[in-house]
């Protein structure tokens, strides 16, 4: 069998195909079909010749095999310094080998490559900052995931995620109507407590266009309400788009580059249609990475910038606190020891370490840094899509140990984690290891301490 019904080289583009994949519980049939999936070596080699250019070729060639990347990798540390977890080894034995063999690899090899690309690297890019040559194995694994995707060797959930984006332009099956309904519902739920609260949809020329993570309308609609309340209290002129509201990109985790382009284009179209002054994305790391940092390249924007200036939620929070748009009650500052989970995607890879510290200075009396922190912080353990892949749950859980130990060492009782992936990983960590910590996004914390201006208080309120 060259290709399976579910496991094949074709991306999912129809609801019918998506439903068939979803009906295959845990991907049982999917992975069985993968055992018989033929590797199209000619296509693989042709893709490599077209896309593996001097940067990656040089990295593969000049790696001095010095092993300095070993200790930089949380997987290497979490797996008792298993040499097979050394980043250089992981990429040389997969991508390096495919290139050496000119794409002539078999099914078993590609399955090993898939397992390595998704369960031994979260593309956190930490190794890149420890290599004297600047070899960024996270970037190379991102590239390798693209090769795997093109050959159909992709974890079941990633294939589904890519399909979701291709069909719904969201990582979950949420239509534009569902999204707008959720906004309306959240507004109605809260307008009694917050008179004048609005979630304006498709308002043109607003100061802020707000985009979210599809998990919010799907599982945590209160997050949208909290965002709305904070914008309301800050007196912001803001809006959400009815179409192009999703900032995340499971296509990026899947290595589906065409899907990546389709997804970000939808958001950029919303920017062009509604002409906001700037876009603010929710508390998510990879969403920011995808839509703000990498997206312009997928969409072919030669400036490397989004059509309107786009910032991370923490940048808006820091600005609102700095300028006094949001005022916090100093007596309500967190008293317990608190630490901050530096997300790889917007701290290491986007330079926002100081912004996060600025916010912490407003909300925590006893802020404790993890060691290491800022640009050199370790991945939460669930990045790169790993949180969502059943096949690699065990490997993910082992990887969580590094973050667990980092958190324990701070003595903090609360981990502020403005990133969906980190938040999930830390929640799961607590479920598995019971270390007695709490974790939170920024919005709920801010809402507990924000000073509500008199004119925005409900009439029957205090």
């Amino acid at each position, binding site marked *: 069998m060259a290709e399976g019904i579910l496991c094949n080289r074709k991306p999912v583009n129809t609801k019918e195909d998506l439903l068939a994949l979803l009906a295959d519980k845990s991907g049982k049939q999917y992975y069985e079909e993968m055992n018989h999936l033929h590797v199209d070596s000619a296509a693989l080699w042709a893709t490599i010749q077209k896309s593996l*250019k001097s940067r990656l070729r040089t990295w593969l060639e000049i790696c001095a*095999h010095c*092993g300095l990347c070993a200790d930089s990798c949380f997987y290497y540390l979490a797996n008792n310094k298993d040499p097979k977890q050394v980043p250089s080894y992981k990429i040389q034995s997969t991508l390096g080998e495919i290139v050496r063999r000119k794409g002539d690899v078999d099914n078993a090899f590609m399955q090993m490559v898939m397992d390595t690309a998704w369960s031994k690297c979260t593309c956190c890019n930490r190794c890149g900052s*420890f290599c004297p040559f600047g070899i960024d194995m996270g970037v190379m694994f991102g590239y390798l995931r693209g090769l795997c995707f093109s050959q159909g060797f992709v974890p079941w959930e990633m294939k589904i995620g890519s399909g979701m984006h291709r069909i719904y332009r969201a990582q979950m099956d949420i239509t534009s109507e569902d999204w707008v309904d959720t906004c309306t519902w959240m507004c109605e739920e809260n307008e009694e407590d917050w008179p004048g609260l609005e979630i304006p949809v498709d308002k043109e020329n607003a100061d802020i266009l707000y985009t979210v993570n599809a998990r919010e309308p799907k599982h945590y609609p209160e997050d949208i309400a909290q965002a709305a309340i904070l914008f309301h209290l800050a007196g912001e002129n803001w809006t959400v788009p009815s179409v192009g509201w999703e900032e995340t990109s499971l296509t990026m985790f899947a290595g589906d580059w065409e899907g990546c382009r389709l997804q970000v284009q939808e958001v950029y179209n919303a920017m062009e249609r509604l002409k906001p002054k700037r876009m603010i994305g929710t508390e998510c790391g990879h969403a920011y990475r995808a839509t703000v940092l990498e997206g312009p390249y997928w969409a072919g924007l030669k400036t*490397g910038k989004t059509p309107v200036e786009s910032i991370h939620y923490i940048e808006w929070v820091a600005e609102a606190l700095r300028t006094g748009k949001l005022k916090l009650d100093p007596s309500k500052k967190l008293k317990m020891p608190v630490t901050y989970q530096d997300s790889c995607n917007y701290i290491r*890879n986007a330079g926002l370490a100081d912004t996060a510290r600025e916010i912490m200075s407003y909300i925590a009396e006893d802020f404790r840094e993890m060691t290491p922190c*800022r640009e050199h912080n370790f991945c939460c353990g669930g990045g790169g899509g790993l949180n969502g892949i059943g096949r690699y749950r065990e490997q993910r859980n082992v990887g969580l140990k590094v973050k667990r130990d980092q958190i324990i060492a701070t003595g903090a009782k609360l981990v502020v984690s403005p990133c969906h992936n980190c938040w999930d990983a830390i929640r799961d960590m607590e479920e598995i290891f019971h270390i007695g910590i709490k974790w939170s996004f920024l919005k709920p914390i801010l809402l507990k301490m924000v000073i509500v201006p008199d004119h925005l208080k409900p009439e029957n309120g205090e």
Partner: protein
Amino acid sequence: MYQFVTGPLAWLSFGIFLVGIIVRVVLYIKGLDWKLDRVTYTVNVSYGIKGAIRSIFFWLIPFGTRGWRTNPGFTILFFIFHTGLLFTPLFLAAHNILLKERWGISLWTIPDFAADLLTIFVIVSAVIIILRRIALPEVRILTTAYDLLVLLIATAPFITGFIAYHQAPGYQFWLITHILCGEIMLVSIPFTKLSHFILFFMSRAQIGMDFGIKRGGMKGKGFAW
């Protein structure tokens, strides 16, 4: 023989070395692709240059980066080895006398005892590098015969030069071998991993531009290498 290896063969190897590294640089730059690499090399140029300079600069300073600081032993080994590799052949008095005789130019020179010491450092560092490759599992798993060959190519001129300088029996043999080893090293640079002689700078500049332009360089203080 001596005339041949220090004459036409020297010209040839210096020629291959120079043309080779220029070709490597040109090919590297030609192979950069803003869309595939996802770095706008030709837009936001000032951020790119700043990022590239920072990325190279901090890594050229011993203990200048977190990577160096967390591996102090390796850092010392690395800098001693590379300082010896670069400085000894360039500033050795004997090389400069030869240079003056043949091409009428010469650089500063270092005293012979300093060159001797640097040579010993190179050889000892190479031995430690090999031992490290054998002893540490995380390095052993990466090590190939090619790595050892490259190390041999880089170190052979020092071993043979040391023997020749100290007038061991068979001086002529060792001298000629030393010159040949040096020439093999020069010629190998463009064609082997030794190309990092120049590609180190290209690769570091590239990742520096990536961080300087796209990954936060326009917002923060620049990546804290």
